[in-house]
């Protein structure tokens, strides 16, 4: 049984301009101990999907199974058990900590809500801060006294408090300096090998995902285009969008960079208010045919453990 299974998950928002289908039928599996990288352009719905799993946005349809239990229809009280298993790390280390709470109070919050006793909580907070490499006097200080990387460590400590099985990382390093980024990623990897925690790693930074993910899911306009092992996808991207995405990532070696073929995507991500009919990528796809403008491709196995949603792969 996989740790997390999404079955045709849909999230929609009613706006003044109409219904935005931010997540439009996503199915995905995440195994125990696995890191799944979820990549895509800004606005493709990857963060919304992460929030839907945390039930921070209303789920319009589909099933979200955590260890086989569908959490989509559950109410707040019934979710308590799930909250212990799934936690989240947020993107903005400046916004994700209450500026008027001490670090100790922020980290202790999940424990307090889970009904831990005061002395056990204090002890656990000490341990958590040590795990993420912060001095133990950090707990009586306020978030503004810390750097971005340190704050992200505080956020990680908070997410780890109840020993979750899955941590949803919503662009955890996007707001950090490159030098600090590596430290935080190494910390996440250390914690994974130490505690066997799984990550759903949401990012638009392909180099980070290449480094940390075991499997990768590529998202575009609310749907998944390609899912598969990281090596398979990096070596041989099947979907034209994945190819364009990987081609857009910079390569450190200038010789290789000059040698490679580049298909540069034209245009912007279409408005999710008014997505093109058929395949949502047809307006920018170099391979688009008439069929793509009518029929929406389904995610199907294309060999090597990779799934892709394109009529022509």
């Amino acid at each position, binding site marked *: 049984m996989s740790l997390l299974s999404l079955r045709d998950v849909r999230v929609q928002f009613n706006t003044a301009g109409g219904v935005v289908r931010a997540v439009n039928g996503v199915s995905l599996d995440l195994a125990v101990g696995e890191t799944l990288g979820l990549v895509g352009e800004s606005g493709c719905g990857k963060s919304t999907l992460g929030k839907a799993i945390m*039930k921070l946005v209303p789920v319009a349809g589909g099933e979200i199974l955590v260890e086989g239990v569908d959490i989509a229809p559950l109410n*707040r009280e019934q979710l*308590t058990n799930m*909250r212990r298993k799934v936690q989240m790390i*947020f993107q903005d280390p400046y*916004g994700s900590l209450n500026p008027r709470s001490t670090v100790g109070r922020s980290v202790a919050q999940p424990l307090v*809500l889970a009904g831990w006793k005061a002395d056990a909580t204090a002890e656990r907070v000490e341990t958590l801060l040590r795990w993420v490499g912060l001095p133990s006097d950090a707990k009586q200080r306020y978030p503004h006294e810390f750097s971005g990387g340190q704050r992200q460590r505080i956020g990680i400590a908070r997410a780890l408090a109840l020993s979750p099985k899955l941590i949803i990382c919503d662009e955890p390093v996007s707001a950090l300096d490159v030098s600090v980024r590596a430290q935080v990623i190494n910390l996440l990897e250390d914690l994974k090998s130490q505690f066997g925690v799984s990550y759903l790693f949401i990012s638009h930074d392909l180099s980070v995902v290449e480094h940390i993910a075991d499997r990768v899911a590529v998202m575009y306009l609310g749907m998944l285009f390609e899912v598969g092992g990281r090596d398979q996808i990096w070596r041989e991207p099947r979907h034209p969008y994945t190819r364009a995405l990987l081609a857009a990532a910079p390569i450190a070696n200038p010789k290789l960079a000059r040698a490679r073929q580049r298909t540069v995507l034209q245009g912007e991500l279409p408005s999710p208010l008014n997505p093109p009919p058929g395949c949502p990528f047809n307006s920018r796809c170099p391979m688009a045919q008439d069929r793509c403008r009518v029929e929406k491709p389904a995610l199907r196995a294309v060999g090597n453990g990779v799934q892709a949603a394109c009529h022509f792969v």
Partner: protein
Amino acid sequence: MQRFEFLGRFARNRGAFVGACLILLVALMAAFASVFFPTDPLRIVGLPELWPGEDPEFPLGTDSLGRDILSMIVHGARATLLIGLFASAVATIIGVGVGAIAGFFGGWVDEVAMRAAELFQTIPNLIFVLTIVVILGSTLTNIVIAIGIVSWTPIARMTRAEFLSLRDREFVQACRSMGMSDFRIIVSEILPNALPPVIVLSSLVVAGAILFESAVSFLGLGDPNVASWGRLVGDGRQLIRSSWYICAIPGIAIMITVLCLNLVGDGLNDALNPKLRDR
């Protein structure tokens, strides 16, 4: 450490510092009124209409009945400040409550709360206060409640605006993702971040409340058992041609106190929102 920093920022605004000192003086005066003037301030103690300085026993003179004006001012400070503080507390409690719920939940709750606030804003404040006092009776409690009821709307709007900007911040989402209850999120997470501008507004409502109470008392609708400053002005108005000092002395006391409260409000604004100061 943080507290000293706060005081330092507050004192850097010199007006606020002077204002705070004077308010403190008035507050001490109010607290120790019965020590300085142990007798009832409403008792007749001398000749009527003695001008200030005419008799060294009554440095601020006596009123039309021969009561010591200085004694009445000192005792009146207590009533005036208490009315101001309690009316502001009533307004803050109503305003923060309504604003927090409206801003946090949004949707129809917000619509209903804001239409209600508009309803209160469209009624002329003073007339509303007078109506409530006339219907419920001229007691101190009723006056305080009436002033609170007309003064809560700006606080509600301010609180709502703060909640609107804070409720979708990531630290609030983090609390939601832990399964924290809405009530706890409102009270222990958002409210501490929303309070600084509200505190500034509340300090200004104290000043407004003192003015309201003075107006009510001036019109003769104040609590007859309490010698507030407004009542002294009201009592002296028949003699304003001959003995204008009876009105002027409590009037100046009101003016200075309200001015100081406004200065303190400005200082609090500087100290609580340091980023806005240098604009």
